[in-house]
């Protein structure tokens, strides 16, 4: 899978990140670096700190120690909306969409950071507000086309099946035009066909649009197939980082998953 898609430039970097809640340490001196154009997965047993890592990256939590660096800029203490504006979008483990709004409305909302017109302009039907709205709608439609959700464009999100809601959430994140997309268990609860579709979309987002993808996922087949590199977390510590091949051979990783080093745990 390695080709000119992945550059040498490190787009996102974590340095010695430590996050604790009271006495509990969620993350302990975690280092990682993600290259531009990569699919980078974070795996680990339940409670290893994967989602906490995402929350640190997108500014929801601020670590006690360490730094998150995005394209050379320290973003550790920025607020989530500032980070979104820089180009880091995410989807959530539990779907966080506006259930009573349509797919289109949810997605247009995803454009909010790009909307420049003010309150007054937005109240007028004509003028710059309208012109901009058309521009944003175009982008939203590109995403709709890309993720093949034309048929549900005007459906209320709450009425959609789970698999489609997951797809809509990814769609909304893409409407931000991010440079990095954080996906939190995009395949959870999906059947085989939906999983395969989602894989295809992730590959396409990465290769066609050149978006760097961070992925948390429990389906090992998917992770091993899609990822260029990955990091393994265990009890808040990073125990390994490398290509899927390297990780599969890593005994410490096997231990974290199985309790001992026996067996081939990450095979398909």
């Amino acid at each position, binding site marked *: 899978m390695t080709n000119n898609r992945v550059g040498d430039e490190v787009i996102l970097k974590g340095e010695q990140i430590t996050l604790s809640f009271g006495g509990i340490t969620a993350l302990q001196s975690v280092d990682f670096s993600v290259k531009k154009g990569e699919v980078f997965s974070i795996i680990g047993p339940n409670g290893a700190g994967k989602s906490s890592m995402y929350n640190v990256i997108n500014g929801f939590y601020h670590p006690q120690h360490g730094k998150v660096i995005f394209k050379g800029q320290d973003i550790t203490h920025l607020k989530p909306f500032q980070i979104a504006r820089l180009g880091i979008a995410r989807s959530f483990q539990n779907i966080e969409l506006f259930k009573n709004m349509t797919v289109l409305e949810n997605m247009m909302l995803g454009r909010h950071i790009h909307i420049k017109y003010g309150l007054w302009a937005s109240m007028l039907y004509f003028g710059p507000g309208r012109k901009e709205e058309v521009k944003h709608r175009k982008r939203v439609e590109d995403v*709709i086309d890309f993720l093949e959700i*034309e048929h549900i464009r005007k459906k209320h999100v709450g009425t959609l099946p789970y698999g489609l809601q997951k797809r809509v959430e990814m769609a909304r994140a893409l409407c931000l035009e991010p440079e990095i997309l954080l996906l939190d268990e995009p395949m959870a609860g999906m059947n085989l066909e939906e999983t395969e579709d989602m894989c295809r979309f992730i590959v396409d987002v990465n*290769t066609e649009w050149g978006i760097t993808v961070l992925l948390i996922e429990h389906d090992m087949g998917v992770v091993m197939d899609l990822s260029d590199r990955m990091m393994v977390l265990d009890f808040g510590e990073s125990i390994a980082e490398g290509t899927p091949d390297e990780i599969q051979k890593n005994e410490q990783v096997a231990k974290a998953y199985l309790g001992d080093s026996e067996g081939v745990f990450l095979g398909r």
Partner: protein
Amino acid sequence: MAADTFPKLLMERAKRYGSGKIAIREKDLGIWQSFTWQEYFEKVKYFSLGLISLGFEPGDKIAVIGDNKPEWIIAELAAQSACGYGVGIYQDSILKEIAHIINHSDAKFVVAEDQEQCDKILDMLEDLPNIKKVIYYDPKGMSKYGDDILAHFPDIVTAGKEYEKTHPGLFEKNVESTKENDISWICTTSGTTGLPKLAMLTHKNLISMASNLGKFDHKYETDNIVSFLPLPWVGEQMIAVASSLLFGMTVNFPESAESAQADLREIGPHVMFSPPRVWENLCASVQVKVMDASWLKRAVFNVSLPIGEKWSEYKFAKKTPPLYFKILYYLAYFAVFKALKDRLGFSNIRSATTGGAALGPDTFKFFHALGISLKQIYGQTEIAGISCVHKDNDINPDTMGQPIPETEMKISETGEILSKSPAVFSGYYKQPEETANTVIDGWLHSGDAGYLTPEGHIVVIDRIKDVMSLIDGVKFSPQFIENKLKFSPYVKEAVTIGHNRDFIIAMISIDFGIVGNWAERHRINFTTYTDLSSKPEIIELIQNEVIKVNKGLPENARIRRFVLLYKELDADDDELTRTGKVRRHYVEEKYSEIIEGMYAGMDSIKIDAVIKFQDGKTSTIHTVMAVRNV
């Protein structure tokens, strides 16, 4: 010069309308994008020249596979304009079928819609020695393919523009040289037996058919049609290509197969031709919506529908209803039918036709009740799709209507329907023996048993080989019984058996969506299709439907026993043709175990079966099916 071929027709349309009239609309990015006749013409022109620049020679063939998009017919017309022709392949075909059609037709170029279709072709490239180029028009996901054999549709158009600079006037010369008796397109026949056959249709076949049909079923240049049925099907060729070019109608392409219903409503077509399956699904979807509606709406519907059905009976009998009934009907029309028509996208519909298989009389009545003048069309691929149609004021749901102009029809001594017209095809590709068996002295042998009514209407009983008799000599038409069963919204497909047997049995596959919905409302838990169809409550539900059907059948030709199949009948398993007709003999063979069990009087039958997916994977099912007596 009279425009007697499609390329000439297109050129003439482009000259007459230029940029002043819309030829094609495609919904893309949520907006209906329009192309004028001039733009349409130019796309065909440059794609055609582009093909030539890649080495397409006169007489070469292309194969097209993909959903309905403008590129599909552009490719078709471009091949014709380059003095070649081609064949359409159903987009859900399995690999074996695709390989057979491409190899058998000697196609050199394949126009494949997207990644999915390209993958199918690339996977079997070794088995397709003739292929020179695979041209795709949906670039999504294609950027990582480095294959030289692949090309993007717009690049071919650009190449065509370049080619014109060095070869000015070539396209016009090519178009000029097309002749009416040239092959224009190959339509695969649905092939209720074995692999599809390739029926070659000439320009004259298709144009004469479209113009003769137009004399009975008028079409105008202001008409809109929505092209959502598979283009390899002769019926869609007839409307979206032949009739639209001949009458200058605007063809609209939906955004995706899933959104076709909503897109249809946005357009509100004037003309629609669909196989029974589409009408049946529409009818079923209305019935389901009614079940889910509030009690008041349901009550209004249930009062209105019988009035509408009575209205259609008056119409079929060509009687004028009494004044009080007219008032009653118009009340029902404005209360229910008008809005319902709009919801279905039929506000503008003028010409609604069904063909390809028989449509149950009850479904027929339903649409006439709504005020949609649904008409039956009859014909074979081999006669460019059409030989008979109902005239506007002479509709009888039991018949196929009357022969269109220039068409002669008669019944042979064996009771077979024969027809003769300028639209009779020029033969099966590379199968002269088959052709000789089908067309004898210019008469096309349909294989359908039928008779002529005193009014000159054709009545089709069934396929000759499908008309059956019980061991005591009672004749029955399985299709007739099956259509009655299929009118129930819960029944998706039914197969009845009884030839040389003591009594009639039925194998029924339920409609997963609708029955699933019913089960949910009745708090019945289920997991898969197989599980659902083995639930006693569901069997009970279907049993009641069978009893209803039996009431409408003669005493000695009723269904005595039935089972619910553990899976839906599927074209991928060769049980249906691509147009959705049951391949009866294959099904009988495949389920012989079940059938024998049912005649042996068993009350339950154990099944270990293998099912096949589109990508060639298989999986097995183990289940027990219960047999019910009625």
